[in-house]
């Protein structure tokens, strides 16, 4: 297929939603509390892997067609770390939605809050990682799109722009699909899109100390300053009854920690008896047979 590279005057305003997540690959015994819940503080916090691919998608659109890239995260002030990283890689601005009212949000409430934040920036294109490694739900992206009535395209692998349309390739599981998508649109991006570009040394120097500043104050002043705009639920017009616990229809009824996690597997002897006991166990729990 020919490469489309036509873009449009003024480029595209892109918003990327990113999340700081506990590194679930590093869950060990210390990270599990006695009641079976996770001690998030005991885990390193990282930039959600597929959100990096989403940021790369936005930066590549800006690079090829012009426009802006705004990174948004929701969470505690510690999440500024990934927003700084986004700025260092090339995002023009970064914002953190941080508010006690958002605590306990499930995907429905999270997507509502983020949809309010996204709307504030009137984007043409929104990019989200396909899913975050702490929940693996892949729900927030499609739900934001529904709430702001954007075209929703999941599992993005490639994007080209053509005026008010995006020509995209997406993975549909049983193959690959090419779509023509009318803007505005939201995309969820997978690792197949390609790795996030490296940090830019000059930007590292500029943004290494970027810290929170109320969004209104930041925007009224020098917007090229090294700062991260801080937004509350009120600032983005998110009503309290749709945020946090109040806005979350799902309840966690029970949590059981997987005892075998983190390398703590059940050892099976390579003997007739050992192997037979294993097979019997798998038959008993209907895994096989």
């Amino acid at each position: 297929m020919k490469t489309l590279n036509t873009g449009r005057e003024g480029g595209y305003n892109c918003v990327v939603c990113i999340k700081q997540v506990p590194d679930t690959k590093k869950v060990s015994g210390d990270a599990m509390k006695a009641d079976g819940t996770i001690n998030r503080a005991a885990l390193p916090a990282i930039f959600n892997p597929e959100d990096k691919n989403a940021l790369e998608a936005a930066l590549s659109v800006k690079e090829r067609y012009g426009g802006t890239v705004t990174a948004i995260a929701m969470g505690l002030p510690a999440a500024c770390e990934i927003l700084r990283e986004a700025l260092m890689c090339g995002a023009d601005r970064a914002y953190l939605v941080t508010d006690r009212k958002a605590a306990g949000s499930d995907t429905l409430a999270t997507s509502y809050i983020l949809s309010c934040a996204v709307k504030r920036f009137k984007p043409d294109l929104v990019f989200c990682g396909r899913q975050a490694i702490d929940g693996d739900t892949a729900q927030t992206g499609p739900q934001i799109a529904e709430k702001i009535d954007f075209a929703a395209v999941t599992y993005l692998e490639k994007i080209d722009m053509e005026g008010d349309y995006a020509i995209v390739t997406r993975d549909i599981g049983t193959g690959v699909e090419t779509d023509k998508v009318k803007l505005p649109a939201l995309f969820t991006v997978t690792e197949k899109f390609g790795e996030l570009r490296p940090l830019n040394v000059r930007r590292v120097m500029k943004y290494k100390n970027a810290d929170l500043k109320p969004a209104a104050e930041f925007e009224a002043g020098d917007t090229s300053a090294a700062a991260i705009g801080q937004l509350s639920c009120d600032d983005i017009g998110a009503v309290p009854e749709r945020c946090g616990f109040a806005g979350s229809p799902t309840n966690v009824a029970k949590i059981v920690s997987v005892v075998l996690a983190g390398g703590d597997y059940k050892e099976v002897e390579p003997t007739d008896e050992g192997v037979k006991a294993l097979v019997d166990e798998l038959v008993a729990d209907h895994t096989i047979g």
Partner: protein
Amino acid sequence: MEIDRTKGEVWVFAEQEDGVLSDVPRELLGKGRELADTLGVKLAAVLMGAGVEPLSKELFEAGADKVHLVDDPALKVFRSKAYRHAFVELIKECGPQIVIFGATHMGRDLAPAVASQLGCGLTADCTELQIGEFTDKRGACQGAEPKVVPGVLQQIRPAFGGNIIATIVNPYNWPQMATVREGVMKPLERMPGRTGELVKHDSKLDGVEIPVEVLEIVRRHSSINLKGSRIIVAGGAGVGSKENFKLLHDLADALGGAVGGSRAAVDLGYCEHERQIGQTGVTVRPALFISCGISGAVQHLAGMQDSAKIIAINTDKDAPVFKIAHYGIVGDLNVVIPKMIKAIKG
């Protein structure tokens, strides 16, 4: 609105591509049958597409009492907004109490959009579903009696990279929705000749602008169906030779499973490229994954670590694969696999 849970149907989304049902709807109907029988309500399949009415026969034979058919040229290929719109209208019209989708690319696109529009809860990637009561203790700290809600869908799923198993409920928002992992639920035996009630619905898509045009679909055709397998036996460089790989096929045959390989096994010519599991191959999450002679590079683990149960067989006790295994056997696969086959056949 007080929900009358005794009447609402249990629905499963019968996804189809090119007029063909995958195994997923059959699996969902297997579980759906159990849920509907427990609740004493009807089990219905939701079938959407263009010219797909003949598929309803297969759905009845797989356990559906009813098929809700929405047939419209605009639904020929999956497009999120068109399917979402038609699905939401159908839910509003019929009032099911439970709606389950496969956690496929299509299901994981459609289900969140439907839940978002309806403002109801959705649990992703469940590995088990059951009906039970939910004790709501939220008022208890103010001295109120805990509230017991009967007949709630308990949505069970691994979370946090598989380190916890969570039971999620959404007892107050209707309908209760979940996506279910592929290959985890058991389909019923096909019941030839079984029929049911076919209900045709209008898509209500007139005047709805769909912002996506599908230009081209290239399907990956493969006779090797790793994704659809409940059980996968996979080998790596440690298998040692193409001949030894036959042992893996024997084990897979004994279990009714499929054979996969790591990138190293493919590069060494031990197995075909279509069998490659990992970041650059297929991603699988079967009920059981038996890893043989695979050290466990991150790129490989990414393609299989969501498997419900993982058995690792490796001579190196420090191989990274043991970090994600549920069962570990430190030993020679040429010794261990024949013992497994014997235990299974015995």
